[in-house]
């Protein structure tokens, strides 16, 4: 009671706001519970679904494997499933500071190699699956993983380049960043999928997935560069003075003194960008790759299930949300740390 009086009903405007919000919750939450649980249909039966007022989870039950794994051969779904778990495992493992040793690189190398073997197959008696058929959650996670892994260092180099004393390097960095930032990701993806092959010498082909990955990396790097530059600008000049006075050469100085401080300052904005990158991977839909969101969309094309988009998108959103929430809550541990 006392808590309520102090926090919810301290003044008239506050009381009115509290009552308004409570009535809003009262009007929305019970109907949602009715829809999502009480009236919901859990059997994969589209007729029952159409007859019912509630959510049609049956659709998700029926299509969950396609949503999660895309067009990957049905009987081989254990392979992307295992690969997804390994990839998530690698991320979780890397989250522990105690494991931030040089051997972590080796762990990733092995982990990614195993993922590659699982996804492609072609060895150890595993059937070969071309990456045109990869899809669903693993595709989203792989595009994000390699996107961050490559765009982050590239972004650091671009940020340093933009602050370089050497005019050529600075001009190139500025030019790159402004050019890429001035273009929507969709057009980059189109260019990567349509135009890139035209520039390559005949006989050389890069597959669609790699082209999309490159476009995502180039795009994210430009944004990350600006975020990192912001962090670099926040470093007091005295830090440079001290590093110079101790005769630390450029790369040492950058790696040991400047970047650790700049990146920590940039953490909130960096995480913002990583989350955006994670969600932007869904744009690969437009060049015909089936990431998590595309698979949802495609499963809705089946006549029996048209109209049950809400349920499917709700599940997809939930999956996206879980990953983004994990990223942002983990990033908080950097901010508090001194």
């Amino acid at each position, binding site marked *: 009671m006392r808590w309520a009086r102090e926090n919810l009903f301290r003044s008239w405007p506050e009381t009115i706001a509290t009552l308004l919000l409570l009535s809003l919750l009262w009007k929305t939450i019970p109907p949602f519970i009715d829809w999502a649980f009480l009236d919901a249909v859990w059997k994969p039966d589209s007729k029952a679904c159409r007859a019912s007022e509630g959510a049609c989870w049956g659709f998700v039950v029926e299509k969950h494997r396609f949503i999660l794994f895309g067009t990957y051969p049905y009987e081989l779904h254990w392979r992307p499933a295992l690969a997804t778990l390994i990839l998530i495992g690698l991320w979780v493992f890397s989250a522990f500071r105690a494991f931030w040793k040089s051997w972590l690189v080796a762990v990733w190398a092995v982990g990614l190699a195993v993922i590659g073997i699982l996804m492609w197959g072609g060895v150890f008696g595993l059937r070969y699956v071309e990456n045109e058929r990869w899809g669903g959650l693993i595709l989203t996670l792989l595009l994000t993983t390699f996107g961050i892994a490559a765009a982050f260092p590239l972004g650091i180099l671009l940020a340093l380049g933009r602050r370089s004393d050497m005019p050529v390097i600075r001009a190139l960095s500025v030019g790159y960043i402004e050019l890429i930032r001035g273009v929507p990701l969709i057009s980059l993806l189109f260019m990567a999928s349509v135009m890139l092959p035209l520039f390559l010498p005949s006989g050389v082909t890069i597959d669609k997935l790699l082209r999309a990955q490159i476009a995502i990396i180039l795009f994210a790097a430009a944004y990350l560069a600006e975020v990192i530059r912001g962090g670099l600008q926040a470093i*007091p000049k*005295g*830090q440079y*003075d*001290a590093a*110079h*006075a*101790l*005769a*630390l*050469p450029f790369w*040492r100085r950058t790696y*040991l*003194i400047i970047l*650790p*401080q700049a990146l*920590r300052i940039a953490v909130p904005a960096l995480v913002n960008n990583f989350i955006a990158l994670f969600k932007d991977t869904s744009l690969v839909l437009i060049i015909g790759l089936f990431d998590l969101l595309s698979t949802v969309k495609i499963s809705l094309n089946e006549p029996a299930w048209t109209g049950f988009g809400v349920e499917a998108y709700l599940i997809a959103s939930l999956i996206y949300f879980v990953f983004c929430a994990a990223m942002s809550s983990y990033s908080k541990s950097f901010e508090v740390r*001194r």
Partner: protein
Amino acid sequence: MIEMVKVNKYFAAFHVLKDIDLSVARGEKVVVCGPSGSGKSTLIRLVNRLEEHQSGKVIVDGVELTDDVKKIDRVRREVGMVFQSFNLFPHLTVLENLTLAPYWVKRVPKKEAEETAMHFLARVRIPEQAHKYPSQLSGGQQQRVAIARALCMKPKLMLFDEPTSALDPEMIKEVLDVMVELAREGMTMIVVTHEMGFARTVADRVIFMDEGRIVEAAPPAEFFSAPRTDRAKLFLSQVLGH
């Protein structure tokens, strides 16, 4: 140890240092004073090339400072510097601050670098703070860490740029004590400071600067009792007058 000949320095159109001639012998302690904006800090920042000069010569320990990065590097290894705002690395512990440059620049083995660091921390009387972060220390302690950090590179020459100006009065003494001790051991020192007591006890020579020129250079006894220029008289009356 240091030889400056007809040195001029500009910040864009602003003429900061005008025809500076200065030589400092090995083991000599020079205190630089003067009103703010007179070019004192810029003068000592020339010595380890934190600032470039536009004309004249700056020779440190036999090496002339030019754009040649190798030479700059050679000089910086021999010259320690202590700043007004400490400039410790906030993301590293005290011990890491002290071992960083010996390890990465001079390639001293980690263990040896740590022993040296602990030795100098004891000398500046805060060995118990080795594993703290700079922000956990008082200003006086931070500045003593900064002095220890410079000493860990075993420099031949130490530059002090207003080392006590950012400190609370009660912490000034602990820093000055360390500096006096260092001077007694024979370190070559150039100190920009307004601590006239320190100048009197330690300095071999006091240099008074105004508007980018060295206006007076004399032993402290002479400078304090009989300044030759009106500008120096005025300055002294203001600094010593309270």
